[in-house]
C-alpha cells in the first residue's frame, strides 16, 4: 500500500490549494455578502431621497391643499420642513435623521412616520407572513407529490390548477372570492366579512377581538396563499424532477436505501434549495405589503398606507414605506444568500 499512497501524493501535488478549510471560506463568503448588502442599502437611500425631489409637485403647496396662503406662510412651511436648505444639506439631514430612526412626519395624520409604520406593520405581517408560510408549505408539498407522480392524474390536476392560479391577477382572484364568499352568490349567503380588520363593536385588544381580526383576515389570507402557492409548487416540481434524473440517486439506491429514503435524504433536500431562496426572498416583500389585496379588503396595513399616501401625496410616509420595503428586500436577499451558503457548499467557493 505504500506505493499507492505515494502515487496519491503525486496526484494531489499539482492541485490548487484548498487547504483554507470550509470555515474560513464561509467567513469570506459572509463578509462579501454583507458588504454587498450595505452597498445596496446606501444606493437605496440615495435613490429614495432624490426620487422624491425630482417628482413633479411642490410639497409645501400640496400641504396647503389648494387653499389660498400668503408667501410668508409658504416660507414658514418651507423652513419648517427644511425645504429652504440646499439639496446637499437636505440629503445630509435626511441621512442623519434616517440613521436615528426619524422618518419625518405624516402630513395627513400629523404623527411621526415611524410610529405610523409600526402601527400599520402588524396587520401586514399577519396577512402576508401567514400567507407566505402557508403557500410555501402547501406549494412545496404539491410540487413534491407532482414530481414523484409525474404525468399521473394528481400531477396533471395540480399543475393545471396552479398554472391557472399563477396566471390570475391576485386582486381579481380576491374580488371573485369577495363576491362569492363574502357578498354571497345567488341564494347562498356570504360567510366572510367583506373587508376591514375589526367588526365595529369589537375591542381589538381583547381575545374575542383578536379572533374577530383573524376571522377578517381569513379570506385575504386564502387569496394571497392561492396566489403565491403556484410559484412554489411549480419551482419545487421542476427542481425535484431535475434531481430525480441525477446519478447520485442511483448511487443511493445501490447502497440499499428504500425509495422513500432516497427521496427524503437525497432528492428532496437538494430540490429544496431553489425553493428556500424563493421563500427567503419573498419574506422581504412581507413588509412592503400586498398593496392590491390590502386595498380591496380594506386591511389597514402598510400596503394600504402606501396606497393612501400616494393619493395625497404624503411624501414622508411614502419615503418611509419605500425605504422599509427596499431595506427588507435587501435584508431578505442577504438572508437567502446566507441560507444558501449553509445549505449548498458549492456556492461558497
Amino acid at each position, binding site marked *: *500500500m505504500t*506505493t*499507492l*499512497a505515494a*502515487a*496519491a*501524493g*503525486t*496526484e*494531489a501535488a499539482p*492541485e490548487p490549494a*484548498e487547504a483554507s478549510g*470550509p470555515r474560513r471560506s464561509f467567513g469570506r463568503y459572509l463578509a462579501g455578502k454583507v458588504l454587498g448588502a450595505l452597498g445596496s442599502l446606501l444606493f437605496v437611500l440615495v435613490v429614495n431621497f432624490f426620487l422624491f425631489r425630482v417628482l413633479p409637485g411642490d410639497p409645501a403647496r400640496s400641504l396647503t391643499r389648494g387653499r389660498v396662503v400668503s408667501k410668508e406662510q409658504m416660507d414658514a412651511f418651507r423652513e419648517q420642513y427644511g425645504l429652504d436648505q440646499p439639496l446637499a444639506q437636505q440629503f445630509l439631514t435626511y441621512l442623519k435623521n434616517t440613521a436615528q430612526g426619524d422618518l419625518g412626519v405624516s402630513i395627513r395624520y400629523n404623527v411621526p412616520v415611524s410610529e405610523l409604520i409600526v402601527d400599520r406593520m402588524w396587520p401586514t405581517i399577519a396577512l402576508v407572513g401567514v400567507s407566505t408560510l402557508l403557500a410555501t408549505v402547501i406549494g412545496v408539498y404539491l410540487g413534491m407529490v407532482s414530481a414523484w407522480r409525474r404525468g399521473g392524474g394528481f400531477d396533471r390536476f395540480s399543475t393545471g390548477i396552479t398554472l391557472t392560479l399563477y396566471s390570475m391577477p391576485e386582486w381579481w382572484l380576491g374580488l371573485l372570492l369577495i363576491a362569492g364568499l363574502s357578498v354571497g352568490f345567488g341564494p347562498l349567503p356570504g360567510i366572510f366579512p367583506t373587508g376591514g380588520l375589526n367588526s365595529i363593536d369589537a375591542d381589538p385588544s381583547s381575545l374575542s377581538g383578536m379572533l374577530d381580526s383573524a376571522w377578517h383576515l381569513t379570506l385575504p389570507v386564502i387569496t394571497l396563499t392561492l396566489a403565491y402557492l403556484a410559484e412554489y409548487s411549480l419551482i419545487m416540481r421542476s427542481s425535484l424532477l431535475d434531481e430525480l434524473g*441525477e*446519478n*447520485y440517486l*442511483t*448511487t*443511493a*439506491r*445501490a*447502497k*440499499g*436505501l*428504500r425509495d422513500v429514503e432516497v427521496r427524503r*435524504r*437525497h432528492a428532496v*433536500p*437538494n430540490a429544496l*434549495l431553489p425553493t428556500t431562496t424563493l421563500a427567503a426572498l419573498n419574506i422581504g416583500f412581507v413588509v412592503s405589503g400586498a398593496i392590491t389585496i390590502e386595498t380591496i379588503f380594506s386591511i389597514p396595513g402598510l400596503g394600504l398606507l402606501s396606497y393612501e399616501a400616494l393619493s395625497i401625496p404624503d411624501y414622508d410616509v411614502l419615503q418611509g414605506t419605500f425605504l422599509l420595503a427596499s431595506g427588507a428586500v435587501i435584508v431578505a436577499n442577504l438572508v437567502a444568500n446566507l441560507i444558501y451558503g449553509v*445549505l*449548498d*457548499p*458549492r456556492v461558497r*467557493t
Partner: protein
Amino acid sequence: MDHLLELDGLSVSYRTADGPLPAVRGVDLVVDAGEVVGIAGESGCGKSTLASTVLRLQPKDAVVEGEVLVAGRDVLTMGWGDLRALRWAEASIVFQGALHSLNPVRRIETQIAEPIQLHEPGLSTAEVTARVGELLEQVGIPAARSRVYPHQLSGGQRQRVMIAMALACRPQLIVADEPTTALDVMVQAQILDLISGLVKDLGVGMLIISHDLSVLSDVCDRVAVMYAGRVVECGSAEQVFRAPAHPYAKALAQAFPRVGDPAARYAPAGLAGDPPDPHAPPPGCTFEPRCTLAVDACREAEPPLLDIGGRQSACIRVGAA
C-alpha cells in the same frame, strides 16, 4: 461452491414505442473471488446495462430475462427487502463520473458512512468514523480530508472516494462501470493500480466495464468482448488483447496502439461503419456488415460462442486470417 457472480442467459431489452429494443442478448459470465473480469465494447453494446442488472438497478422500462446470481441467489427474483440487504453489503458499484454519482451537497464522510450505518446499524458513531477514516487512507486520501465536499476534490480523488465508498461494507463483489473513463492517462494509471492492489489485498471479485481494452488488459484476469448485446469473445486478458480471435476483438485491440510497438503505430486501425440498428439487426452475424472477413455463410445464422483453444469466440471464420 457458488460463484460470486454468475450471469446465466441474461437478456435485457428496453420497451420503446417501436417495440422491444434488445440491449443484452443471452450473456453467460462468471466472476470468482480474487478474480478481475473485464467487459469491453463500444458505446451502446449493452455493457453498462449489463452492469446495472447485477444490483437490479436497470431502468424501469427494461425487461430482464435469465438469471443474475450473486453468491448463488438470484437478484432478479428476490424480494425487495432481501435485495436492499444485498445491495452494497454483498456487491457494490463504482459508478462512472464520480462528480455526478456523489451527492454534491453532502460531505464525503457522510456519504461513505451512509451504507455502513444502513447495513451495520449496531456500530457506534465513533466506529463508523474510524472505518470511514481507514477507507479513505486505504484509497490514498488523508483521513483529515473526510469533511470536504465532492466539488473540492479533483476527478481522480473523487474516483478514489467512490472506490472507498464501494469498499465501505466490505463486499465480496465490486462492479466498476467505466471507473477511469473521465480521467487523464496518469490518474487513470494510478486508479488502476489502486484497484489491482485492492483486489489482491482484499481478495474480492471484480467486474470491470470499459470501452478501453488497454485498461482492461492491465488489470483483468479474463476479458469478455461484447458486440451488439452479445459476448463475441471471451478469454484470458493476454489472449484477447495480444492475440484476439474474433474480427471485432481484433479491431478493438488495434484501436489502442501499444507504446513501443511500431507496427501498431504505423497501421492506423479504425473500424468502418456503425453498430447495427438494434431494431433491425442483420440476419446472420451482427458484425458481418462491418467485417472484412465476411463470407456468405456469415449472413445465414448468428454464430454461437464456441470454445477455441482455451477461449471462446463467436465467429465461424476464426483462423481464416
